[in-house]
């Protein structure tokens, strides 16, 4: 546990000593604000809810989260520091977890900094704050899933750009599998249960269900298993890479 914290602390320091974390947070806040207020017409809708705010998160994360996570392992490989890290008296699992948690904290900070939106809706009306909390939890879990995917892709290559692109593509799959325009199209030539089955693998399906304010254990389980699966794959990739 101490080792995980030590590694997470170092990573966080790395994020904040380079512009990565700041750039991510600022851009996330700007874009979240832009989509919520300008594109979706938050004020015009006259509802006291954050639906317009959360709707955009899967798409915002699609590009921003891989940008945060892409250096996680590729940079270690490029600099050769992975050789130092993995010859320390720690398990690879501790290193993987520590690094993942640090990046998740960065995204968490950005998400927490959107609190003015919550204050705004509470000022303007009487929103269901339980639903809002659900939205935040879902959004945070979804970011975790994207980050775990990025951790996996960054372990595959020493090139950050490649790791970014592969992570975006994989995440896009996870979105589209449950994105209504796509599922509606699929229904026309595949049986509905197949489409539903595919959609069950999508972050969209589970994010939307959490957003409704009911924290179903199946949705929680979904995000945690995506994270667990991707981090496990990361450990296999790292082991395979070491074995040569």
């Amino acid at each position, binding site marked *: 546990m101490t080792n995980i914290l030590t590694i997470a602390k*170092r990573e966080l*320091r790395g994020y904040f*000593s380079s512009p990565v974390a700041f750039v991510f947070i600022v851009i996330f806040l700007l874009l979240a604000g832009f989509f919520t207020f300008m594109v979706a017409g938050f004020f015009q809708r006259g509802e006291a809810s954050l639906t317009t705010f959360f709707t955009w998160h899967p798409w915002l994360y699609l590009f921003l989260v891989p940008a945060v996570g892409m250096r996680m392992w590729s940079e270690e490989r490029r600099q050769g*520091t992975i050789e130092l890290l993995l010859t320390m*008296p720690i398990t690879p699992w501790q290193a993987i977890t520590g690094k993942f948690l640090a990046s998740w904290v960065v995204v968490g900070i950005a998400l927490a900094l959107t609190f003015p939106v919550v204050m705004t809706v509470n000022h303007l009306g009487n929103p269901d704050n339980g639903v809002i909390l659900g939205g935040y939890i879902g959004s945070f879990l979804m970011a975790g899933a994207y980050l775990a995917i990025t951790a996996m892709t960054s372990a595959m290559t020493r090139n950050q750009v490649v790791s970014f692109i592969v992570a975006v593509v994989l995440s896009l799959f996870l979105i589209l599998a449950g994105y209504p325009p796509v599922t509606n199209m699929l229904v026309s030539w595949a049986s509905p249960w197949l489409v539903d089955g595919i959609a069950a693998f999508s972050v969209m399906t589970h994010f939307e269900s959490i957003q409704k304010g009911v924290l179903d254990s199946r949705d929680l389980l979904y995000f945690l298993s995506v994270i667990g699966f991707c981090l496990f794959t990361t450990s296999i990739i790292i082991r395979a890479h*070491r074995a040569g």
Partner: protein
Amino acid sequence: MIQVRELKKHFGPKVAVNGISFTVERGEVLGFLGPNGAGKSTTMRMVTGFIPPTDGSITIGGHDMLEDPIPAKRLIGYLPENAPSYTDMSVQAFLEFSGELRGLSGDGLKRAVGRAIEMCFLENVRHQSVETLSKGYRHRTCFAQSIIHDPDVLILDEPTDGLDPNQKHEVRTLIRRMGEKKAIIFSTHILEEVEAVCSRAVIIDRGSIVANGTPRELKLRSEQAGAVTLRLVDGNAAEVSAKVRQVAGVDRVTVVSERPLAVRAFPQKNAGSDDVARAIGELAFKERWALQGLQVEEGRLDEVFRSITLPDTKKK
């Protein structure tokens, strides 16, 4: 402390290490020599637990590196080739991080970092970011990381690479001093370093150990070892070498240089170098040659290295 048995590593069809065995006890400094691509770094990476071997076993202080890596790794300090370090950290922060992963904390950590900074002469760059350090300083920072927990076992892959002559000297002194209480393996391409630091050296070529012994023993394998070199202020090369050849126990004589004159006498198989040297000395005295020097050659490591690792046709 370090026991390595029949270590093998294949990268696809390529055999990088092919059955290497050795042991290093406390108080020993083992030097790894060998041409580029011989498998020195690969061997070290396996010993430190970074890459798993294809076959063979590694035991560090009684702990099996493959079965029980954490306690084995705890005993090791490692300086990888090219001395990587986290460039976004300051020297001090980097050393603190390494110390923490080594299980140090609080006052103990502070003391360890101070000691490592002092030993590696990093005082004046302590708060500088590693990114902005010169190559030599980066190397020393990574070296400092390897000794932060005062480990029993030190594995150093080219520890003097990129250092200036003064620092090379300091690091050698440091390795020799630490070698009294630790088990150390280090690789180098600088042969004088082996003589200055190692208690034992192995020459690795194409994945196998091709020579193993103290630097002195290795030097004796040199063709020159035991030859007697006579240097004169002046004299006729043909005349002098003809006379030297008559000396009892001399097999053959070569002229090393004409001016100043230097001839080298190779003793016969059963003749002692010292006796030959004494006889040549007496000859020089009798002939009233203007003697500049008379010396029994110890042999040269670079010659041994070359004759062992070059697949040369003369030898065959």
